[in-house]
C-alpha cells in the first residue's frame, strides 16, 4: 500500500477520497487552489498544500503543479478524482516518470483506451455490440457528410477526448451536420485541447446504461452490476439509479457478464465504467469507457457494499482484488441525485454564493456525499456540483418514496439549487414507470418539464 496519497481534486470527491484514505489508514495530502482554501477537504485533511491560483489551468489542471506538490509533500501516489487530469494519459505517464503512482489504470492502459473510436473497435473485436459509427475520426467535413450518409441520419457528433456533453450534438440532416461540426470542433478544442470528432448512429428513445467493472493487475476482474443514467439534460447526467429498470434480471446479468469478459480480454486494469446505449428492444450497444471513478459510483456501493474508491486505490497499489464475482451480491435499489448550484428558473444558470444554512437529511438508506457546510462560500470557478444525495431502498418504489422525504429534508439556504428538477422527476409518470429515455427532459425542454410537474 502507498504511504501517502496526494488528492488532486476538490469538492465532494476530494472529501470522498480523503475518507477512503483514512479508512485505509493511509496518510493523505489535499492539493487545493487558492479559491478552495476554506473548503471542507482542506479543513478535514491532516495536511493540505496550495498548488496554484483559482484558475484550474494553473492548479487542478496543471500537471507540473500537481506532481511537484506530490513530490515536496512526500507522497508516493496521486488520486486524480474525476474530471481535471483524471483521464489524461499524458499526465499519468509523467506521474510514472517521476516515480509516483497514478491511481487509476496504468499509463499504457489509459493510452490504449484514450481514443473512443479505437476503444469501440477494440471492444467490438471482443464481442461487444457497438453502435454503428464513422470509420475512424472525421478527416474533414466532406468525410463527415459521407460517413453520416452511410450510417444514416440522425447521427451524434462526438469528440474523441473528454466527456460531460461538451462537443456533442445530435443532427438530423446534412445541413445541420455541417453547421454543427464547426461548433463541436471548437467546443472540443476549448474543452479538451483536441478537436478530433467522430460520428455515432443516434438512437431515438435510447437508455443510457453503464456497467461498473474492477480488474486487478493480475487480470482478475469482476463487474459490480450496472447503473442507469438515462436521466440527462443536454447530455449531462443528473439522476442515476441502479439496477436499471430498462432490462430484466437476466438481460442485466448478461450485459454485465459480456462487459467484464470483454474488458478483461482487452487488458484493462483498475476500476472503470463501460457505457452502453440500450434501444427500445433492449439491445445494448457499447459506446465508450470511463477509466476513472464516476460521480455516480455511490449507488453501486449502496447495492454491493463494496467501497469503489478503496478498491481503486488497492488495485493501483498492486494488490489483488481479494474477492470474486460470486462475492458480489446486489441488494435493493438506489438512486443518486446530483445537487447542483443551478437556477432551474433561468436555464440552469450556475450560481454561487454563501451557504447560509446547510442540513443534510438522514435516516434509513440515506447517504450524503457533499463538501458543503454552513458558512461555506461556493467559489464561482468550478463546476456546479454541491453534493450528491444517495438513497437506497429494498425496492424501487421504496427508494423513490424515501428520496422524496430526503429531498424535502435537505436544507441549502443561500444558494439557488436544482432541487426542483429532482422533485419534478419523482412526480413524472414516465420516470415512475421506469421508462425514462435520455431525451425525457430535453424533448419538452427543462422549463416545460418543470412546469408540467408543478401542475
Amino acid at each position, binding site marked *: 500500500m502507498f504511504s501517502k496519497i496526494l488528492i488532486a481534486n476538490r469538492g465532494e470527491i476530494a472529501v470522498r477520497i480523503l475518507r477512503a484514505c483514512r479508512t485505509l489508514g493511509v496518510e493523505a495530502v489535499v492539493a487545493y487552489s487558492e479559491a478552495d482554501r476554506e473548503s471542507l477537504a482542506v*479543513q478535514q485533511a491532516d495536511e493540505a498544500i496550495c498548488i496554484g491560483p483559482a484558475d484550474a489551468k494553473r492548479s487542478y489542471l496543471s500537471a507540473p503543479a500537481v506532481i511537484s506538490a506530490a513530490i*515536496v509533500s512526500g507522497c508516493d501516489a496521486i488520486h486524480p478524482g474525476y474530471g481535471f487530469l483524471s483521464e489524461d494519459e499524458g499526465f499519468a505517464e509523467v506521474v510514472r516518470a517521476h516515480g509516483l503512482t497514478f491511481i487509476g489504470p496504468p499509463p499504457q492502459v489509459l493510452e490504449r483506451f484514450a481514443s473512443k473510436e479505437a476503444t469501440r473497435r477494440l471492444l467490438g473485436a471482443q464481442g461487444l455490440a457497438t453502435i454503428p459509427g464513422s470509420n475512424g475520426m472525421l478527416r474533414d467535413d466532406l468525410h463527415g457528410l459521407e460517413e453520416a450518409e452511410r450510417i444514416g441520419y440522425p447521427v451524434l457528433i462526438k469528440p474523441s477526448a473528454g466527456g460531460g456533453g461538451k462537443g456533442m450534438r445530435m443532427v438530423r440532416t446534412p445541413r445541420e451536420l455541417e453547421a454543427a461540426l464547426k461548433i463541436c470542433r471548437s467546443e472540443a478544442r476549448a474543452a479538451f485541447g483536441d478537436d478530433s470528432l467522430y460520428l455515432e448512429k443516434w438512437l431515438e428513445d435510447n437508455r443510457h446504461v453503464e456497467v461498473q467493472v474492477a480488474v486487478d493487475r493480475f487480470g482478475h476482474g469482476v463487474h459490480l452490476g450496472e447503473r442507469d443514467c438515462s436521466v440527462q439534460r443536454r447530455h449531462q447526467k443528473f439522476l442515476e439509479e441502479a439496477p436499471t429498470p430498462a432490462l430484466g434480471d437476466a438481460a442485466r446479468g448478461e450485459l454485465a457478464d459480456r462487459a467484464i469478459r470483454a474488458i478483461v480480454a482487452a487488458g484493462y486494469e483498475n476500476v472503470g465504467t463501460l457505457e452502453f446505449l440500450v434501444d427500445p428492444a433492449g439491445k445494448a450497444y457499447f459506446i465508450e469507457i470511463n477509466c476513472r471513478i464516476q460521480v455516480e459510483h455511490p449507488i453501486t456501493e449502496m447495492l454491493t457494499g463494496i467501497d469503489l474508491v478503496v478498491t481503486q486505490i488497492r488495485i493501483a497499489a498492486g494488490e489483488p482484488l481479494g474477492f470474486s464475482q460470486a462475492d458480489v451480491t446486489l441488494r435493493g435499489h438506489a438512486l443518486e441525485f446530483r445537487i447542483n448550484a443551478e437556477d432551474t428558473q433561468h436555464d440552469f444558470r450556475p450560481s454561487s454564493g454563501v451557504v447560509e444554512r446547510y442540513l443534510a437529511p438522514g435516516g434509513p438508506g440515506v447517504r450524503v456525499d457533499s463538501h458543503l457546510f454552513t458558512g461555506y462560500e461556493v467559489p464561482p470557478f468550478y463546476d456546479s456540483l454541491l453534493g450528491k444525495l444517495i438513497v437506497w431502498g429494498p425496492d424501487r418504489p421504496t427508494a423513490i418514496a424515501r428520496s422524496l422525504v430526503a429531498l424535502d429534508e435537505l436544507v441549502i439556504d443561500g444558494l439557488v439549487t436544482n432541487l426542483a428538477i429532482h422533485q419534478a422527476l419523482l412526480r413524472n409518470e414516465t420516470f415512475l414507470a421506469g421508462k425514462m429515455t435520455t431525451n425525457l427532459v430535453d424533448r419538452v425542454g427543462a422549463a416545460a418539464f418543470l412546469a408540467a410537474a408543478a401542475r
Partner: protein
Amino acid sequence: MPDRDEAARLVDHAQIEGLADELLPALIAKLGATGLGELELREGDWRVRLRRSADGAGAAAKGALGRSTRSGPGHLDHAHPAAPEAPRDAYRSAATSPAVGVYHPRPEIASGSRVRAGDRIGSVDVLGIPQEVVAPVNGIVGAGLVENGDAVEYGQELVWIELISTPAERGGRDA
C-alpha cells in the same frame, strides 16, 4: 453621562443620521466586497459596528471545522499562506512563491540587499524548472521565512522586503 444638553443631543442625532444615511450604505457595500466579517466606525461619541450576518459563515467556519495540522516529520509544516484579507504590514511586504516546489534564494541577494519591485530574488523549482521569485516592492531584503531547499506551496511567504522610506516620511508616520 450627566447633564448633556439639548444641543449635544442634537449633535448626536445629526451624527447618527449622517452615519445612517451616508456612511452605512457605503460601508455595507465595502463589507460585501471585502469578505470581511465585521467593520467598526466611530464618529464623535458614536460607534457603529457592522457585522455580516453570514459571519458565522466564512471566518468562524474556519475556526470551527479546522483542525490542527499534523504533518509527519520531513513533510511540509508551515502555516497556510496568509488569507487575502489578512492585515498588511505597513512597513514590509513579503515575496511569495509563484508555485509549489523547492525554494532557492539567489546567493547574491543577501539580507540587507537593496531590491526594486520585480527584481528576481530567488526561484522555486517545479520539477526541475525554476520559477522566478520576485520582489513585490522596492526595498531592502529582510528576514527569510524559509530556508534554501525548503518545500514551499503556492502563495507562501518566502522573504520579507522592508519598505524604504525617507527619515521625514518615517518620522511623519511615527509621529
